[in-house]
């Protein structure tokens, strides 16, 4: 009896172990589906891989083009192609080396690390989400980059620049030969005399700000040009001139300019080098320094001529609050409304660049203004032609006129021409 019970206990134990073992056996043993992840299949390769010389460069770049992989569908979820990897080699004996990659739906890669003396083979591989690469497709022939000696994309800009420069030089030459040109009154520049005179009468200084850019900016050069005229007047009227600068090079240039003006006015003794000083390159640090001085010394005349950003309004409003007569000029179109709102006179765009000619009244400089007018006429003529062609293209829907319009928009009037 006892043996039978022990035997049953043994059989029971074996049965439980058997059931647990069966439960834990790989399900594949029972013909069920595998739970292991399958190795994903690689995406279809790209096709028609080819390389071309990149245009308008020094022979250091090649453009690689390809047709998208058949699995690279624009709105596919999940994506079968994540990126394209680009490889290159210089000779058939070399291994391909990676040079870059592009994301899905891109058909072009520019290799900018080439040398004009070498030829290159390229290979493009489509890569799936788990990094599985497609079959590599390579260029059929090697490609060599070429040096271009003229940037043809800027051809129209070059032609337009040449015409305008030629016109300016022509009118300068005519002015030198004795032709006289009339120039309209610019109230802002007429007011410079008045402002310096007012400062002299009030016994308060004049403040000149030449923008916050360095001397390599043409607006700063134009500003310093006007500074020389203002300095001549302050020397003549015996008024004090303060010129805080935000660039060291502008400080050294402004010192030279003001000193020369004082010398030319016969007042070298009145020149104060310390009144032309460097503050900081930092935009708002500079503003804090200048406005602080404005509040302490309350200048009677403030001149802002140069390249300005957000600080324009802070400076002009502070000048307004101390009761200064304010004249501003900038070519930064976004800052013009601020100056117009806060200053007494504002030189808008080209008036700012005409200031030097206007103040000096030198015939050669006045001639350059006539040249600018010629440039404006040319610009207006091209714009009118563009409007006319666009109107005709809209009315007729003729392919040839459409093509002409496209050429005008993207070359003569576009980024390669009038709007470089």
């Amino acid at each position, binding site marked *: 009896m006892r043996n039978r019970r022990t035997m049953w206990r043994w059989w029971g134990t074996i049965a439980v172990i058997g059931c647990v073992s069966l439960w834990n056996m790989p399900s594949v043993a029972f013909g069920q589906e595998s739970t292991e992840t399958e190795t994903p299949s690689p995406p279809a390769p790209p096709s028609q891989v080819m390389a071309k010389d990149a245009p308008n*460069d*020094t022979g250091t770049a090649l453009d690689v083009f390809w047709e998208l992989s058949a699995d690279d569908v624009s709105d596919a979820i999940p994506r079968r192609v994540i990126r394209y990897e680009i490889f290159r080699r210089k000779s058939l004996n070399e291994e391909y080396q990676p040079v870059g990659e592009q994301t899905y739906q891109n058909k072009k890669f520019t290799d900018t690390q080439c040398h004009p003396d070498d030829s290159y083979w390229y290979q493009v591989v489509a890569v799936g989400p788990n990094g599985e690469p497609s079959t590599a497709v390579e260029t059929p022939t090697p490609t060599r980059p070429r*040096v*271009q000696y*003229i*940037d043809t994309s*800027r051809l129209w800009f070059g032609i337009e*620049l040449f015409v*305008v*420069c030629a016109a*300016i*030089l022509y009118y300068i030459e005519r002015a030198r030969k004795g032709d006289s040109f009339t120039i309209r009154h610019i109230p802002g520049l007429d007011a410079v005399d008045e402002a310096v005179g007012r400062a002299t009468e009030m016994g308060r200084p004049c403040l000149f700000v030449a923008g916050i850019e*360095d001397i*390599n900016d*043409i607006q700063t*050069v134009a500003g*310093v*040009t006007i500074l*020389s005229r203002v*300095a001549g007047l302050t020397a003549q009227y015996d008024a004090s001139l303060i010129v805080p600068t935000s*660039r*060291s*090079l502008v*400080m*050294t*240039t402004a010192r030279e*300019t003001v000193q*020369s*003006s004082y*010398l*030319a*006015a016969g007042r070298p003794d009145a020149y104060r080098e*310390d009144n032309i*000083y*460097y*503050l900081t390159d930092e935009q*708002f*640090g500079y*503003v*804090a320094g200048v406005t602080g001085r404005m509040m*302490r010394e309350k200048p009677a005349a403030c001149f802002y001529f140069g390249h300005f950003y957000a600080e324009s*309004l*802070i400076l002009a*409003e502070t000048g307004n609050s101390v009761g200064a007569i304010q004249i501003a000029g900038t*070519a930064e*179109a976004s800052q013009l409304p601020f100056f117009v*709102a*806060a200053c007494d006179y504002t030189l808008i*765009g*080209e008036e700012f*660049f005409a200031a*030097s000619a206007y103040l*000096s009244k030198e015939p*050669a*400089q006045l001639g*350059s*203004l006539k*040249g*600018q007018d010629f*440039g404006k006429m040319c610009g207006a003529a091209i714009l009118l032609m563009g409007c006319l062609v666009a109107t005709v293209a809209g009315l007729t829907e003729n392919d040839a006129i459409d093509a002409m319009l496209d050429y005008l928009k993207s070359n003569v009037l576009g980024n390669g021409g009038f709007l470089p």
Partner: protein
Amino acid sequence: MMKRTIPVMIASIAGLVLVVAHFIPPAQSWADEVSSWFQILAAVAFILGGASLFKIHLQKISDQRPGWGYSALTIVAFTVTLIVGIFKIGVPPSESFPSMPWSGDYVGDGGVLWWIFTYIFTPLNATMFALLAFFISSAAFRAFRAKNTEAMILLVTATVVLLGQTYAGTLLTGYDWINPHLQLKSIVDEWLMPVFNASGQRAIKIGIALGIVSTSLKVLIGTDRSYLGNEE
């Protein structure tokens, strides 16, 4: 004579190189060279700028002129920033060279310069920038006072643009029974900004471009030398 001729020659040659490089790709390396010279000049001039700053403020402190306390603060701030930057005080070593104490970036996280930049410079900068909001209000208030016809037109246009660019425009006129082209937002987006504003801006920009060409040419050929001072 030489004091003027040589600077004009340097300016002309450098300018011509930059113009030529814009159209001839192989000359780009010359333009890069000229730009490098400018960077070197600017770096040297920075020493002059720093020296000028020191001299002016030390004089002010020495003469005990009004506001000399600000000058003292400027000198202290300048010196402290210069020293902590040059000696990389508090900068942790670079991960690539952990045994070298000076291998970290001078503005690296945790350094004193980084602390000054993050906790002193940035808030002060933001404070100055924030003043702009108040100045815009005061300037707008003055500019939009309807004292004459031009100011009146400016006021009306500004009001329409302001309302049209904000949600107020949609709230006031964004109803189905109003023709979509007559809604404030459409008037601003489809008409005022791309027609009137854009054409005005383009006219100004064309004038500016021609002015830049003319001024640059005058500097290049030495017709305008007034940036070197009056000659008379």
